[in-house]
């Protein structure tokens, strides 16, 4: 307490500091004059009295300093004076300061950007009141369960509120004669009440409401022109009328995390709809308690409403929804691994940047050794010198991070605007938060220490006498600390460059890779029907649409063929794992394969050759003999070299019948371009129809783009309530290319950053070392050395540095890139010689460029001037 009060008084003093000095002077003046007056009264002559009083008082300066010292917080004063001193020094040498700040800004900015993206993607806190008390619940190990179960859980009253949401839904929005598709979040009517998130306008969906809707900020802005009077307006979604009651703010993050943000929220209405369970724990409840309570709720549920084949009480899981807890949820390992790798890579970039600054500071310290030695001999302690040098690097890194922060804000702004081409509504909301601030503060301190400590210690260790006697004359000893730093830097940038090139190569490979079907002449038309309009159990109405659509599409000029499919390759997939039996052997084979339901003409349309047998025909439909088409790899895995056509396969699903193989098609890519070749089974579309989403694929004679409009026209004419999206297949590869693109962009950028920084470092070291060797070079020239000889001397020094750095870098890169195979397209090994060669080549070119200016300076040395220079 008293400490705080003292601190407060010190701060008050700091504020009124200038007045303090003048008052103290007045006070001492008064003291002296009072004493003089007293002396005068005692009989001392007036002019002597004042002098005597002054003598008695002693040094006013010392008294004043001592008094001021009482109030000062010494280390803070020292820090400020050091910083002021450093700022003055930088103003005298702006080139040095600008280079250092530029390097640090690049390093710290890159770090902050990646950090912002990573945290907002992986660890973003959902927009909700007290999100620490919110939990995600897995019933029976599943992320989603039916609304009936949800209602049971809610009625159990274990929690302070529950929330359910399904983000995997779409709805058609009809406005005028336009129909668009929205990514919808189907929420339980207590969702917004439990979350209690702030709203931009209006409110959330309230309990017992069935016809209200909430808009996301993005939809409100883009589709409704930010209409401030939007509340109360009607919205026709899937043919139903909803009333808009609220608009979420721009920074809203859904509870699902991973930047998933539905465009519109509507109440979930059907009891068989699946939702993800969330709940708010009451005060004092912990995760284990919550889990135990849930266990008993689900056991009860299993007893009252048994579900065949599945126990809800098995594998009940509970996790938090913020911070690292999020990683315990279902997230593909490759995604976390990718971000982890990014963080390592940007760490490396920062390391290179810091090394640059450290090496600049080293150079500066040794050219200032005279000044420093002078200060030491005048009584400055070594500690004081170290502190002073550290203050310089602290100032540099603070300014660097400030610039880096601006860079980060600019970059994340751009990133936030990028529409990620995935079939789920992903939208990253990036805003600087306390984590970023903490991170950047850490980066400042770490880089200040890393940059400044080594040069400072080295400068302070220097022998004063030596430094004073000898002026900075550097001779041939090239292998000093700076050289080691530069070599290390070069090594690190070899690693970065090799990784960057590897990913660029990967992208090129992925883009040019033949996915096993023709993307250039294929169009994908997606037609989403409103489910309620096609409710008939026999799907007659829907089949009617499909058939007339196919008929009319085929009749369009320029359309060679058209087919319907349940899933569009490289955009959606379905992996199944089962024990298969065939009619050729009694053994079961465990296989996992891709499955898709495709209509007649599918393979002709996408351009995948049929190797044996036939395509599906209209006769392959419900009720007819079950038939399948398999791919080459499937045939080889299950039947070896025998011809599978005419044989049957039977899976071990309940009631599965033997299916006759009628065809074998060539292998192709099914979900990502990077995937290893998978097994695939195709079933006839009309045997298992997909009720709502119709995917038509069309093959055109010319390039696909011109056909988009007429195709949409045909489909729109068939059902005006359907949402239609038509695009050339080449545009629809976004998802498949996303991993390669993200990798290439991120790591390529980092590689270039590293390269720039390493080039600056190399350039600086060579330039500095030459300026220290001017006399030596002058002597050499005077003794008859030719320009070539001089170049050889300079070149040798540079090349030795470059060669040793690269050797170390290559060895490191070889080890570092090995785990990256995970991210690469098949056929491209992490040990990619072309990437290594490219990295070394580019670095060599930059190194030579970096040596050019120093070499020119060396050649221009005038021997007379150089020798007289002493």
């Amino acid at each position, binding site marked *: 307490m008293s400490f705080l009060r003292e601190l407060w008084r010190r701060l008050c003093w700091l504020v009124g500091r200038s007045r303090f000095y003048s008052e103290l002077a007045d006070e001492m003046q*008064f003291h002296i004059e009072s004493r003089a007056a007293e002396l005068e009264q005692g009989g001392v002559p007036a002019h002597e009295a004042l002098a005597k009083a002054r003598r008695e*008082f002693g040094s006013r300066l010392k008294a004043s300093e001592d008094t001021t010292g009482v109030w000062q917080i010494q280390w803070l004063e020292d820090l400020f004076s050091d910083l002021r001193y450093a700022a003055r020094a930088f103003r005298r040498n702006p080139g040095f300061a600008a280079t250092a700040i530029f390097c640090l800004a690049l390093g710290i900015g890159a770090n902050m950007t990646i950090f912002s993206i990573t945290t907002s993607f992986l660890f973003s806190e959902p927009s909700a009141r007290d999100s620490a008390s919110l939990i995600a619940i897995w019933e029976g190990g599943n992320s989603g369960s039916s609304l009936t179960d949800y209602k049971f859980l809610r009625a159990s009253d274990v929690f302070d509120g529950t929330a359910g949401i399904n983000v995997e839904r779409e709805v058609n929005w009809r406005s005028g004669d336009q129909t668009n598709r929205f990514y919808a979040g189907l929420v339980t009517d207590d969702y917004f009440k439990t979350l209690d998130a702030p709203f931009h306008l209006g409110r959330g969906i309230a309990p017992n409401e069935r016809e209200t809707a909430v808009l996301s900020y993005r939809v409100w802005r883009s589709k409704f022109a930010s209409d401030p009077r939007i509340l109360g307006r009607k919205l026709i979604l899937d043919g139903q009328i909803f009333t808009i009651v609220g608009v979420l703010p721009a920074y809203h993050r859904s509870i699902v995390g991973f930047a998933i943000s539905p465009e519109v929220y509507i109440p979930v209405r059907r009891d068989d709809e699946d939702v993800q369970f969330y709940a708010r724990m009451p005060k004092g409840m912990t995760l284990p308690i919550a889990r135990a309570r849930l266990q008993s709720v689900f056991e009860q549920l299993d007893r009252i409403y048994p579900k065949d084949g599945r126990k809800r009480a098995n594998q009940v899981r509970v996790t938090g929804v913020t911070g690292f807890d999020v990683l315990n949820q279902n997230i593909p390992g490759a995604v976390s691994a990718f971000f982890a790798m990014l963080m390592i890579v940007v760490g490396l970039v920062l390391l290179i940047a810091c090394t640059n600054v450290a090496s600049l500071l080293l150079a500066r310290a040794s050219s200032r050794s005279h000044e420093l030695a002078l200060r030491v001999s005048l009584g400055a302690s070594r500690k004081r010198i170290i502190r002073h040098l550290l203050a310089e690097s602290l100032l540099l890194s603070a300014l660097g991070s400030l610039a880096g922060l601006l860079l980060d804000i600019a970059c994340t702004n751009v990133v936030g605007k990028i529409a990620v081409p995935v079939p789920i509504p992903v939208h990253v909301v990036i805003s600087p938060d306390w984590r970023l601030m903490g991170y950047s503060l850490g980066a400042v301190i770490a880089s200040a220490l890393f940059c400044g400590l080594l040069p400072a210690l080295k400068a302070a260790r220097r022998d004063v006498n030596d430094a004073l006697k000898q002026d900075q004359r550097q001779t041939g000893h090239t292998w000093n600390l700076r050289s080691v730093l530069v070599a290390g830097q070069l090594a690190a940038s070899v690693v970065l460059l090799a990784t960057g090139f590897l990913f660029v190569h990967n992208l090129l490979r992925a883009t040019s890779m033949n996915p096993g079907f023709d993307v250039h002449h294929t169009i994908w038309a997606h037609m989403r029907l409103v489910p309620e309009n096609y409710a008939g159990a026999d799907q007659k109405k829907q089949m009617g649409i499909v058939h007339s659509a196919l008929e009319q599409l085929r009749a369009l000029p320029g359309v060679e063929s058209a087919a319907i499919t349940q899933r569009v390759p490289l955009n959606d997939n379905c992996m199944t794992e089962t024990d298969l039996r065939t009619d050729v052997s009694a053994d079961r084979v465990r296989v996992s394969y891709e499955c898709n339901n495709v209509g007649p003409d599918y393979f002709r349309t996408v351009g995948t050759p049929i190797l044996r047998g036939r395509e599906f025909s209209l006769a392959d439909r419900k009720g007819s003999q079950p038939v399948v088409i398999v791919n080459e790899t499937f045939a080889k895995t299950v039947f070896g070299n025998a011809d599978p056509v005419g044989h049957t396969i039977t899976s071990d699903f309940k009631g599965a019948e033997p299916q006759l193989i009628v065809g074998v098609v060539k292998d192709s890519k099914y979900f990502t371009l990077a995937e290893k070749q998978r097994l695939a089974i195709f079933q006839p579309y009309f045997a298992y129809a997909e009720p709502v989403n119709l995917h038509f694929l069309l093959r055109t004679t010319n390039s696909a783009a011109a056909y988009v409009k007429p195709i949409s026209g045909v489909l729109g004419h068939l059902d005006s309530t359907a949402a239609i999206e038509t695009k050339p297949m080449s545009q629809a590869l976004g998802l498949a290319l996303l991993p390669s693109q993200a990798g290439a962009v991120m790591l390529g950028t980092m590689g270039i950053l590293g390269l720039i920084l390493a080039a600056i470092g190399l350039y600086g070291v060579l330039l500095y070392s030459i300026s220290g060797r001017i006399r030596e070079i002058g002597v050499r020239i005077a003794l008859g050395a030719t320009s070539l000889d001089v170049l050889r001397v300079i070149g040798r020094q540079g090349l030795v540095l470059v060669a040793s750095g690269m050797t170390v870098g290559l060895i490191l890169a070889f080890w570092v890139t090995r785990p990256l195979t995970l991210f690469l397209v098949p056929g491209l090994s992490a040990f990619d010689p072309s990437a290594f060669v490219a990295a070394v080549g580019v670095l060599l070119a930059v190194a030579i460029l970096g040596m050019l200016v120093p070499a020119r300076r060396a050649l221009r040395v005038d021997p007379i001037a150089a020798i007289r220079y002493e």
Partner: protein
Amino acid sequence: MADDSPQLLPGTLYMLILRALSGGPLHGYAIARRIKQCSADVLDVEEGSLYPALNRMLLKGWLRAEWGVSETNRKARFYRLTKEGRARLVSEENEFNKLVNAIQLVMKTA
């Protein structure tokens, strides 16, 4: 004169200042004079340590300073005891008395 006056016991300056102020607010010069007079010219507070000590006491909250007018009708800075300062005076006095008694005991009996 400064040569033959004994050094102040360490730590007693605060106590002396507190005592000098216990009669009412005084300015710096008056404090020094009061201590000197009361000690029959034996204790001479050095100006070089008076002002740092006063400021340290301000910092600790024992004193408060305000500007006023001196007996010679000039602007001067007056120091006044706070409640904490009064409490401090009592405790310092007790401590000091104990110490002095103990020392005297030793000197008389040992």
